[in-house]
């Protein structure tokens, strides 16, 4: 009897899995899957936030009109040299990835990813309004450009700084442990605190940086309102803020390298910088890939730094995509158009997520 009773409560592995996963799946569906599809659905409507809030029927289906109004314009033409700077770099990149793949210096996936990225760099800036034409939304593409510039500066900045710090702070001394903690500490601060700290740092009157420039006889830069410096200021604050995680990942990667290799290196006359270049760096390849892709995904979503430090200014030079989406949706109440931009951002980040997934599975050649 007791045996039958017990079997009545026994779950198969599958049932147990379903029950244990159910809470997560419910939350995931309600707060992520549903809003995601709702967002796409909104992007296909002319949807004013205020109007729809008061009258749920005050929306009209417009198909892909929102996407057109955000990304396209009147009389848009394409020229191979419309934006020579980007397009030449893009062209060189395409050729370089083909060359690297042919000579076997880059793997298939790496070459393909690099090829696609540089091809886009060649194709996309070629679009421009022809005679008498104009973009429907003059601010969108410059905002995308600013975001890419921000990512392009912050990601290498974080990666290189974090890697050098990790190499310097790898070790068992107490001082190194303390410094590791200190460098990681900035990571736990909220964006509000970080931007406040750096606003003070960049302040032309009492800021540390201004004091230093004055000490050496320079005149202080008004970082946050000077067109050439505002983006740099945001990037610097961001690097300081997001150094910690990258540093920890690099430390883990470095500690994974067998000490024997450095001893073999010492016998082969590869010590110090040579050891870093010939032994540490090649063995960190995987960690570098992970860090770079994670940082790209993270920094495409930049919002707080731009919003709190410069309000997108001066002259829109630090306006970034998420902040533009936010303003379009909640200041201008254009929820449909904002959703279309958000879908655009999703496509970019989805692309990088897939890239990371593929690179993570790629076996070493």
């Amino acid at each position: 009897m007791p045996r039958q009773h017990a079997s009545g409560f026994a779950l198969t592995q599958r049932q147990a899995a379903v029950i244990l996963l159910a809470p997560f799946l419910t939350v995931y569906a309600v707060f992520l899957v549903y809003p995601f599809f709702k967002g796409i659905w909104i992007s296909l409507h002319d949807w004013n936030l205020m109007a729809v809030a008061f009258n749920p029927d005050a929306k009209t289906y417009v198909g892909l009109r929102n996407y057109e109004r955000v990304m396209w314009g009147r009389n848009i033409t394409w020229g191979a040299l419309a934006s020579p700077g980007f397009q030449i770099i893009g062209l060189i990149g395409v050729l370089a990835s083909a060359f690297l793949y042919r000579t076997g210096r880059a793997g298939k996936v790496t070459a393909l990813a690099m090829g696609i990225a540089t091809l886009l760099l060649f194709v996309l800036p070629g679009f421009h309004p022809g005679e008498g034409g104009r973009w429907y939304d003059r601010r969108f593409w410059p905002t995308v450009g600013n975001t890419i510039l921000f990512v392009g500066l912050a990601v290498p900045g974080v990666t290189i700084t974090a890697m050098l710090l990790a190499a310097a702070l790898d070790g068992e001394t107490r001082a190194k442990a303390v410094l590791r903690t200190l460098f990681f500490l900035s990571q736990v601060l909220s964006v509000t605190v970080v931007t406040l700290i750096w606003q003070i740092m960049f302040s032309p009157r009492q800021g540390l940086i201004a004091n230093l420039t004055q000490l050496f006889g320079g005149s202080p830069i008004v970082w946050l309102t000077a067109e050439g410096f505002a983006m740099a200021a945001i990037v610097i604050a961001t690097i300081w803020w997001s150094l910690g995680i990258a540093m920890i990942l690099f430390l883990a990667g470095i500690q994974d390298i067998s000490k024997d290799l450095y001893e073999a290196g010492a016998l082969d006359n590869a010590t110090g910088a040579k050891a870093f270049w010939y032994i540490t760096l090649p063995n960190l390849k995987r960690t570098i890939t992970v860090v770079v892709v994670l940082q790209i995904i993270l920094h495409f979503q930049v919002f707080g730094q731009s919003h709190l430090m410069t309000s997108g200014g001066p002259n829109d030079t630090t306006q970034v995509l998420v902040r533009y989406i936010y303003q379009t949706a909640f200041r201008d109440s254009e929820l449909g158009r904002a959703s279309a931009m958000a879908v655009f951002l999703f496509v970019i980040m989805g692309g990088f997520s897939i890239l990371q997934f593929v690179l993570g599975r790629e076996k070493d050649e």
Partner: protein
Amino acid sequence: MSGVTLSNVIKKYGDVQVIHGIDLEIENGEFCVFVGPSGCGKSTLMRMVAGLEETTSGGITIGTRDVTRLDPSQRGVAMVFQTYALYPHMTVAENMGFGLKMNGVPKPEIAEKVAEAARILKLEPLLERKPKALSGGQRQRVAIGRTIVRGPEVFLFDEPLSNLDAELRVDMRVEIASLHKQIGATMIYVTHDQVEAMTLADKIVVLRAGRIEQVGAPLDLYRDPDNRFVAGFIGSPAMNFLSGHVAQGALSIPALKDVPALGLRLPSDGTKVELGIRPEHLQIDPDGEGFRLDLIEKLGGISYAYLHAETGERLIIATDGESDLTDEMDVGITFNPARAYLFLAETGLRLR
């Protein structure tokens, strides 16, 4: 090519001294094996020769150069690591040529030397592979190839065979021996396996707890050990020891009914001693008594009999492979007194 001289070499980690003033002379072209149980300091001593561990005091000379304070790369040594320590991101050829590349040797010369080493070690078909795509034995050969390419004055091997399976270990042992014949350079080889030591060495250095117990040619150590430790360490299976003492100017060994005269000058009465006899120098007397045969392992060529005395002491005896002895017999033992050794129980020193 040159010999290696250690003079009063000491290594301390903080307050803990692990190498206690070692003096050693390794001749040019000699194959010298450091052997001892784990923790005896043999690896540390070799790493001090390599420069991977700092020498706390004393001096190390290679050839005529004092290398005590030189960087590892300037000492003219090359090393094979236990884990091989191949650079995983480089091909076999790059691994072998890396040392020369770092020392600014021109590419054609590197390629030539790598090709030469690959020929010696039969690595030519593998030159473009990465270490991951190699078997254990192949990795081992690449690690050796890397040292050959460097053309060092002294080759160092740090337990190079311990990660290989038994069969491959024998093959590689033979290869290393023939490599030494071919190249003729000074080699230092660390192992805890006394079979490797016996088969490879011109000179064995037996270490224990950071001190040299004895230095000598393999068979000299086997025939003429200085103390109980060396006697027990060299030879396989290990020497048997029976404890006893000196009573009224004669030897008294409780496990043995009658003790043959060893022809030695015995110490004073009451001194505790140990009688050592190798398994291969003992014979079983099936009609005798005093010992119980617990188990006999018949390996075909040879058999090992495991006995215990009435005193509880255990013995191993090597005997005829097709022996008709069986388990659980009561037997006696006989031996040639000239083949027996006597040690002071307290210090382990041999009485001659």
